[in-house]
């Protein structure tokens, strides 16, 4: 008898058919992977199981019994727990308060908290999930915050644990620790559903894997009988190249020099601490690091969106900081920027594709006709970009918000690359982008490198950095803790540096 069985789950959001008659089952005491591209319907399915969405049709069976789940309360009562991609924690509460929230055991806190503390210490010992119960959650590293989430589910008596993209915020080493934890849970008879789009995790820890594409299940196999390539093809529906082929880099003249750059946030805390490096023509330099270690601030400072508190940036003989050049002036000097957060900084979601295709370049003479915009030129420019970058659907009048993440990103990339920059700053180029488009974007970036441009790539996807960069700088706590040539780089080496262990640094 399976621990969890779904039969014919169907769900529509307006015109989008998010789940099409999904049926599958997960055995007791197993780790079951659910893999699919962004938008394949994995999260929708899991949210239905946890009662956050309600299915239009279908049946959920837990330990052989049909259960009606219309709220998280119902799911918890049925023994289902979920760890969300974005943690559901109250940041200014203690760990203990977060865990008991909703399961306090009495109207007065004092009685419940005492009992909970004893129970949790036992639970933590059983599963090797030690956390400081009285620490404030916002002061804990993300790895521990995730542990709090797992404890929260177990404390509520979960037998089935859903983890939605659990490694997005973890270093590779933290991820390995998580996998060990999952193995211990499996050994204790718990059922784990691991939802991810990362092939590595599926191969590392699952027993069986279900592949979803466009809301439907397209395959289910035992993990030992499959390969990353086979899974990727099932996810995308055609053969894909997991690694971009590229020749060795031929670095040329230095285009960008960063010297002793320090950036402080609004509260005066230094987020980038005295960073120096150079960028040569014809190379891709990758900045690796766990999210939130200063990479975003560094990128924004280089782009001119943020002001440094110290240091200098030199581009083609100009001193960007001393001269006070803003983002627009920097663009004019050939410093293009694909921001990390596409929807907040890269596009205006409510604008059409053609308007988005000229953002930041709207005042170029090519788009002017007297005091007005030359709409015909704007339209023609957008059509050209759309066909060159395979943006689908190729309709310049459509709102950019209604394009998929991959197609939005392709248009942003087209906009920045078409400006013929000398240096391209690019943040999270494939965040929220499907595998097919990832392949395309990666090939564009390598082509740009081979055309003699300098690229600075910031990504939290270590695989992406390892696959694209010629040189890798690792950031931790606002500093560059190591530099490594891509030929010498392995996931383990870079991962250790990301965790703050200083590298040998062959600069």
């Amino acid at each position: 008898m399976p621990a969890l069985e779904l039969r014919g789950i169907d769900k529509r959001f307006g015109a989008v058919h998010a789940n099409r008659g999904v049926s599958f089952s997960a055995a007791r005491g197993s780790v079951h992977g659910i893999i699919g591209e962004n938008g394949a319907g994995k999260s929708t399915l899991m949210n239905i199981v946890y009662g956050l969405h309600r299915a239009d049709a279908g049946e959920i069976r837990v330990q052989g019994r049909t259960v009606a789940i219309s709220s998280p309360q119902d799911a918890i009562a049925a023994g289902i727990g979920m760890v969300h991609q974005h943690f559901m924690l109250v940041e200014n509460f203690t760990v203990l308060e977060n865990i008991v929230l909703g399961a306090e055991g009495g109207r007065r806190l004092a009685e419940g908290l005492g009992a909970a503390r004893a129970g949790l210490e036992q639970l933590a010992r059983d599963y090797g999930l030690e956390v400081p119960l009285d620490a404030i959650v916002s002061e804990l590293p993300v790895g521990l915050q995730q542990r709090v989430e797992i404890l929260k589910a177990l404390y509520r008596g979960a037998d089935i644990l859903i983890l939605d993209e659990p490694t997005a915020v973890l270093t590779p080493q933290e991820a390995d620790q998580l996998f060990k934890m999952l193995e211990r849970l499996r050994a204790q008879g718990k059922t784990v559903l691991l939802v991810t789009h990362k092939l590595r995790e599926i191969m590392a820890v699952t027993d069986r894997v279900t592949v979803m594409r466009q809301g439907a299940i397209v395959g289910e196999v035992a993990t030992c009988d499959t390969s990353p390539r086979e899974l990727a093809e099932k996810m995308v529906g055609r053969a894909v190249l997991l690694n971009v082929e590229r020749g060795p880099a031929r670095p040329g003249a230095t285009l960008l020099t960063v010297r002793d750059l320090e950036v402080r946030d609004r509260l005066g805390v230094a987020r980038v601490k005295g960073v120096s490096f150079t960028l040569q023509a014809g190379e891709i330099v990758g900045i690796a690091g766990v999210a939130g270690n200063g990479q975003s601030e560094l990128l924004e400072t280089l782009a001119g969106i943020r002001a440094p508190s110290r240091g200098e940036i030199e581009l083609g003989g100009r001193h960007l900081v001393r001269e006070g050049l803003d983002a627009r002036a920097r663009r004019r000097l050939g410093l293009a920027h694909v921001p990390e957060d596409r929807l907040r900084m890269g596009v205006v979601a409510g604008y059409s594709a053609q308007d988005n295709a000229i953002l930041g370049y709207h005042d170029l003479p090519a788009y002017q006709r007297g005091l007005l915009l030359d709409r015909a030129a704007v339209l023609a420019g957008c059509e050209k970009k759309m066909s060159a970058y395979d943006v689908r659907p190729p309709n310049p009048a459509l709102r950019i918000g209604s394009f998929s993440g991959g197609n939005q990103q392709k248009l942003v990339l087209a906009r920045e690359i078409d400006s013929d920059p000398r240096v391209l700053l690019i943040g999270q180029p494939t965040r929220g982008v499907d595998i097919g488009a990832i392949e395309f974007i990666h090939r564009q970036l390598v082509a740009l490198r081979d055309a003699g441009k300098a690229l600075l790539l910031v990504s939290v996807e270590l695989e992406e950095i390892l696959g694209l960069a010629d040189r890798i700088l690792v950031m931790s706590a606002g500093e560059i803790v190591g530099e490594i040539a891509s030929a010498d780089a392995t996931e383990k080496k870079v991962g250790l540096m990301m965790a703050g262990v200083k590298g040998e640094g062959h600069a």
Partner: protein
Amino acid sequence: METYTLIVLLLAATIRVATPLLLAALAGMFSERSGVIALGLEGMMLGAAFASAAVAAVSGSAWLGLGAGIVAAMALALLLAFACVTQRGNQVIAGMAINLMVAGLGPALALAWFDLGGQTPQLEAAGQRFLSLRWPWAEAARAHPAPGLLYAELISGHNFLVYFAAALVPISAWVLYRTRFGLRLRAVGENPAAVDTAGVAVNRLRYQAVLISGALCGVAGTYLSTAASSGFVRDMTAGKGYLALAALIFGKWKPWPTCGACLLFAFTDALATRLQGVALPLVGVIPVQFILALPYVLTVLLLAGFVGTAVAPRAIGVPYLKEK
């Protein structure tokens, strides 16, 4: 009058002025801690002031008036919660709408029912108002100035609602920090999604919080029309709802500091009343307009410069959208 007596009387006036502020500020605390902006305090208070004065005038009972004030303010709170929580409307606009609606509705109903130019009848009979309670030996104690006058003026000599407001501070602190409801309330104002996924209904909690806020505004409004004065007059809250909101922010959404802020604002107000027409050394008589503006000037200065970083509940003003 000797200085000592003057100070004691000033402090006694401070307590009287602080009472409706404190009630409204604590009302706002429950609402804002749950994530709903408490901009409707003014309207809920004014509505309660009208309802309680009207019912007290007709029934002859201050207690029935209090009940009516609470019911009226809670009805307005329910409307606010429906707009802000169920319909996920803009909370600032919903709060302002309540304030504007009541500002017009109160005098209009008063005119229709009592025909006294938008007021309610004067509450004159004994049971119609909340009168000062004289504690044992208060009059006798006056004879011994040092502790006696303090006892007679500060401890004794207030009406029931003042004592209720004073008791409400520790009670609120206890509810907020020591009970299950308080834990959930604080959580829902910070991260409603966490509360939802922990298996607690977000909207229900917010309704409860806003209704509590309404009930407390009901007491505050009743105080204004049946204790501090004897009847409802147009715009009698005179911005106290907004001042209470300022005190809440100044008090960083915590019961005791909020109480302190209310007392400070009330003190400047009491001082201003005292200073009217009094010639001060060096400056002479200060024009009354300047004196009346003092509490508000102080508010602006305090909020602008001396509060430090007041960190609001993180989810304040954001309706919780549970994707269906």
